[in-house]
């Protein structure tokens, strides 16, 4: 069964020559007839599907549309045409620790972040010790977040995120943070998710991470699907594309 179906999705951004952020600027713009803007197609007729329990990698150069695609899957951006079907509880990790408040304690933040990720308070209470053990922050649970180091911050966010237990995970490069042992822990957790049969869509520049996690891969170039299939083949296509680009 397909868990994520993307068909014919296009997304256009309008980039005005002069960005207008106030009513006054807009009125002035109408009077002076300054409404020129550039059109930028971030995605064009992108289509693919992800089966239940499958891990799909998305690679491509900077500005190829990877993040836009992920944001559309997450429901943060709306496509201009085409459609997206998602069957299951989806969690997107475009950034870790969304909604964290520096002035509140670690404990309070875990409840807030947990509920943003779709956990009930009861569920957080049940997994509370697990989360803090995983983050190795049990001693600091009633410390305010503003006193946390950035490493502690990320560990707390990650520990909460991995306990949210969604069926479908959308992951931008957020997990490429922290020191080496922590990164290793993240990688192990991701493999564990795969074994548990979770559907993963993974966007990354780290090709070896993609290779170890995703059997199938999608290459984006200028908003179009340039190649799709076996990760090894797609990565070869990517390298070929890069070297072509270098010659041109």
């Amino acid at each position, binding site marked *: 069964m397909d868990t994520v179906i993307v068909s014919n999705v296009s997304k256009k951004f309008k980039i005005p020559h002069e960005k207008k952020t106030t009513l006054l600027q807009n009125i002035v713009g109408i009077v002076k007839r300054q409404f020129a803007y550039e059109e930028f197609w971030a995605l064009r007729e992108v289509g693919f599907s992800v089966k239940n329990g499958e891990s799909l990698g998305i690679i491509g150069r900077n500005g190829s549309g990877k993040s836009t695609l992920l944001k559309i899957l997450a429901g943060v951006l709306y496509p201009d045409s085409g459609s997206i079907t998602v069957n299951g509880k989806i969690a997107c990790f475009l*950034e870790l620790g969304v*909604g964290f408040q520096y002035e509140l304690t670690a404990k309070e933040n875990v409840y807030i972040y947990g509920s943003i990720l779709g956990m009930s308070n009861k569920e957080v209470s049940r997994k509370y010790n697990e989360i803090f053990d995983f983050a190795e922050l049990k001693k600091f649970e009633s410390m305010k977040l503003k006193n946390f180091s950035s490493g502690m911050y990320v560990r707390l966010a990650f520990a909460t995120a991995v306990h949210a237990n969604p069926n479908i995970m959308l992951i931008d490069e957020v997990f490429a943070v922290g020191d080496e042992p922590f990164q290793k822990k993240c990688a192990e957790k991701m493999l564990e998710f795969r074994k548990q049969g979770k559907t993963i869509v993974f966007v990354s520049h780290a090709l070896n991470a993609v290779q170890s996690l995703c059997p199938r891969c999608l290459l984006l170039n200028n908003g179009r699907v340039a190649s799709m299939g076996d990760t090894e083949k797609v990565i070869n296509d990517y390298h070929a594309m890069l070297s072509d680009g270098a010659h041109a």
Partner: protein
Amino acid sequence: MWTHRELIKNLVVADFKLKYQNTSLGFFWSLLSPFLLTITLYFVFRNVFHGEQYYALSILVGILAWKFFNVGTMACLYSLVGKANLITKVNIPRKIIVLSAALSNLVTAVLEFIVLLPIIWWFTGHLPATIPLFIVVHFLLLLFIYGIGLIFGALFVYFRDLSSIWEVMLQILIFSSPIFYPLSVISERIKPYYMLNPLTRFIIIYKDIMINGKLPSVSDFLIVIGFVAAALLVGNYFFNRLQRRFAEVM
């Protein structure tokens, strides 16, 4: 919305904690400005309206109702831009952000009206039986604030000078609502226009049930419900249309 009630609750509680934790007097700070405003208005205007019964109390009720609306709509207006991360990085129903801003302001407003009760008793010697109705009126005003907040919150994402414009409007509202003067000073000629201000009816109802022990007339009540329904309908319509491009312009 109902499925996200725990998220809403957590956001409201966090908001409330953040607002008051760094002030040792906490919530009582929020009472300071309405009391000072009431005292000022009372001493300035008491000779003009000396026939008014419980004049100071009447100003205070009016000011607190106006403050509920003022602070509530402002909080809703800033809510989306202030929590940009919840819009650009995760997918939660975005109306939740506006609603939780309105709700955290409701908590303050309810506490303020509870503080008002002993003051009413002290001035008038008794508490009118109609007082519990303020819960109903508060609920209606909350929905009204939420509706207006949906419109302004969404528009503020696109037009960042809206906050200054709305602030001026709120100042005008103090003078165009019967807060520190009785309705009878408004001439019959302009009264029909004057009554178009939704806040006017809310304030009249508050003063009637809190001080005079008078039930609002059915027609007044229905008109207020009409205002609330209109605000919610227009608010939802605007919000649903504008929210599609939120993440692009944030």
